[in-house]
């Protein structure tokens, strides 16, 4: 069969489609967005009516997927690593309910924080929820793990976490497809109380999950993705997890001199780890992310065999791995000199020329002049770039929706004015409940919902509150007289400044909505329209 040239993210989407998936649920987030976008664009998926619309946030996505699994069908939910924090309540409890139809939770971590606020390692979430975890080392494995993952989930009766990182998600390679499996038919769970986590039932379900751990471990030990290859040199045994395996083998294209255990399925395969420990003098652990395996094997008192990795300084404690760092840890003579010519200047990311957020920030800076710095809480999106020159307008960016709630807390502490700047999609994702808190207490604060009518930073996906923002604010209870809409444009600068000054002075919750379409989606729409005409 002809190989397809696919990103790792796309390989997962194709694998899931070929594995009989009936629906995918997600909120966009780099580096996970392309999984869902691939399904949305797939002709086969459209013909099969595979669900692929965006969800309002990762929690609603996770719960909706669980509902599809309840109804017996195969489903995937996708998110970036910090999205799993949002979905965590549903995620952890889904391990206790178990599944009916196969349920795969694909989470894309971003070590080195290319587009994120932290580099948390989702494998810990898998361990925390006591769920099996798959971690592909290449695009073909990514395809196969999604393809076979539904069967694994159904046979172990539990959701399965697929953990990828930026370099798998956004790297392309040839991928060979397999035969397309049929989707499941609608069938309810055998036990109608399986999903009812009342304490009495939850205790029983939890014991079932605990009892299943042995089967999960056996599945790891028998997994084709976990490979044990004995080498002639017994001085060192190497455990390489996920993509770290590639950085190891890059130095040994003809085969490694040391014994290597490649781990791509968790729980950690105990049998193979014991074998490696018995065989080798010392152990080196290569893992992309936190030292999960290393911490466990090194132990608190470090009394066993010497374990090398991120904790003993053989590898850096933070950031993603690469072939050079791994090469150095293994004693190869590699270059680590990244110095470039002095004349090479940085190009920091900036808001696009013509973007409405720019005009909103220009007005905000002027309206804020009389109050000084330190009054503006912001959020996750393109507008976070308002923290950088030339605007330097905002003082926080923590997690989705935190602008509104932090502004409330600061207002409660006495800060006046207290202002939140949040995008339309982020508002729909996690801003509404915080706004309700503020309305309930009549908190003195202003929320600027900088509305570009799309989810801009991830490439222009549908924004769930599009066309509904004023109605949502009214419904939550904001006084309609203090819901103000304006077109953020240079010619409206004075109007915007005046509006902001008025609302900053108001002792209550006010909402200002500067609304203008994202210039990237506008340009794309214009191109599409021109194409349709011609």
């Amino acid at each position: 069969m002809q190989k397809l040239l696919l990103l790792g993210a796309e390989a997962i989407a194709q694998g899931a489609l070929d594995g009989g998936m009936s629906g995918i649920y997600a909120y966009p987030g780099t580096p996970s967005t392309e999984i869902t976008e691939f399904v949305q664009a797939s002709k086969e998926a459209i013909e099969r009516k595979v669900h692929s619309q965006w969800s309002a946030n990762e929690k609603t996505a996770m719960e909706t997927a669980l509902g599809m699994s309840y109804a017996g069908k195969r489903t995937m939910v996708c998110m970036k690593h910090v999205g799993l924090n949002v979905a965590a309540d549903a995620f952890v409890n889904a391990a206790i309910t178990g599944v009916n139809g196969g349920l795969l939770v694909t989470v894309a971590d971003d070590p080195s924080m290319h587009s994120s606020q932290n580099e948390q390692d989702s494998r810990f979430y898998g361990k925390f929820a006591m769920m099996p975890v798959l971690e592909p080392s290449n695009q073909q494995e990514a395809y196969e793990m999604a393809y076979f993952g539904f069967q694994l989930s159904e046979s172990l009766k539990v959701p399965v976490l697929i953990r990828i990182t930026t370099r798998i998600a956004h790297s392309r390679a040839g991928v060979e497809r397999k035969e397309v499996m049929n989707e499941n038919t609608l069938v309810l769970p055998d036990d109608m109380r399986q999903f009812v986590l009342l304490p009495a039932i939850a205790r029983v379900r939890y014991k079932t999950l605990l009892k299943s751990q042995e089967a999960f471990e056996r599945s790891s030990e028998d997994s084709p993705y976990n490979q044990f290859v004995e080498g002639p040199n017994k001085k060192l045994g190497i455990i390489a997890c996920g993509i770290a395996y590639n950085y190891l083998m890059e130095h040994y294209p003809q085969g490694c001199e040391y014994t290597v255990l490649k781990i791509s399925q968790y729980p950690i395969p105990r049998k193979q780890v014991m074998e490696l420990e018995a065989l080798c003098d010392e152990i080196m652990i290569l893992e992309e992310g936190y030292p999960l395996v290393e911490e466990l094997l090194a132990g608190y008192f470090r009394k066993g065999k010497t374990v090398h990795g991120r904790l003993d300084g053989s590898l850096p404690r933070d950031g993603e791995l690469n072939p050079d760092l791994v090469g150095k840890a293994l004693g190869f003579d590699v270059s680590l000199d990244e110095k470039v010519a002095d004349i090479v200047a940085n190009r920091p990311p900036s808001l696009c020329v013509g973007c409405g957020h720019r005009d909103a920030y220009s007005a905000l800076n002027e309206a804020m002049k009389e109050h000084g710095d330190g009054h503006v809480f912001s959020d996750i999106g393109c507008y976070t770039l308002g923290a950088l020159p030339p605007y330097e307008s905002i003082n926080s960016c923590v997690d989705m929706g935190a602008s509104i709630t932090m502004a409330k807390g600061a207002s409660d502490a006495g800060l006046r004015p207290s202002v939140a700047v949040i995008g339309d999609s982020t508002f729909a994702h996690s801003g509404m409940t915080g706004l309700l808190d503020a309305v309930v207490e009549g908190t003195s604060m202003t929320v600027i919902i900088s509305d570009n009518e799309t989810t801009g930073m991830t490439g222009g996906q549908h924004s769930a509150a599009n066309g509904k923002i004023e109605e949502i604010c009214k419904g939550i209870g904001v006084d309609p007289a203090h819901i103000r809409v304006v077109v953020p444009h240079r010619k409206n600068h004075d109007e915007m400044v005046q509006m902001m000054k008025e609302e900053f002075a108001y002792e209550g919750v006010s909402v200002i909505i500067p609304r203008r379409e994202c210039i990237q989606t506008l340009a794309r729409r214009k191109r599409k329209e021109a194409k349709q005409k011609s």
Partner: protein
Amino acid sequence: MKTDIIISGVGGQGILSISAVIGMAALDNDLHMKQAEVHGMSQRGGDVQSNLRISSEPIYSDLISLKGADLILSVEPMEALRYVPFLSESGWVVTNTTPFKNIDNYPSDEALMDELNSHPHVVLVDADAIAKDCGSARASNIVMLGAAAPFLGMPFEALEAGIRKIFGRKGEQIVDMNLKALRAGKEVAERVVANAQ
């Protein structure tokens, strides 16, 4: 054969379509390939790069090692310099000479050319002018692809076939224009290589 290439430029300059043509040519020639690219926040006017690896043997790492690249192919001159630490001692820098200035502290033309010319193996291509001569300024990235052709370790015909495949839907005229741009770029590079020997 094994060729490791870093393709660089500024977000929106079309480096991904260069990767796409080379990638398609590689797969059609039963070669292994991996291509890591940058998505997300850094695309907004920031520097972007793609690690492209082609080999007759299986490829492990998605990323190229420092001092490991055979070629830096850049559609912007300062962006070529950003990746020099990745260039092997025998590697080539092939770059467009038209700068993309969206920052205040962009180096002077003179400093930029001096730095580029200080490298032993460099091909400077006025790709924008050549593309215009071929019929469309938008084909400058295809001129650059042509200029990289002598260093890719793949038959030139494979790239031509890649162009036909990718631009085929847009009609014969667009295909011919891009093929012309591809050949013009190749000729520039071949002249430089011949002079160097």
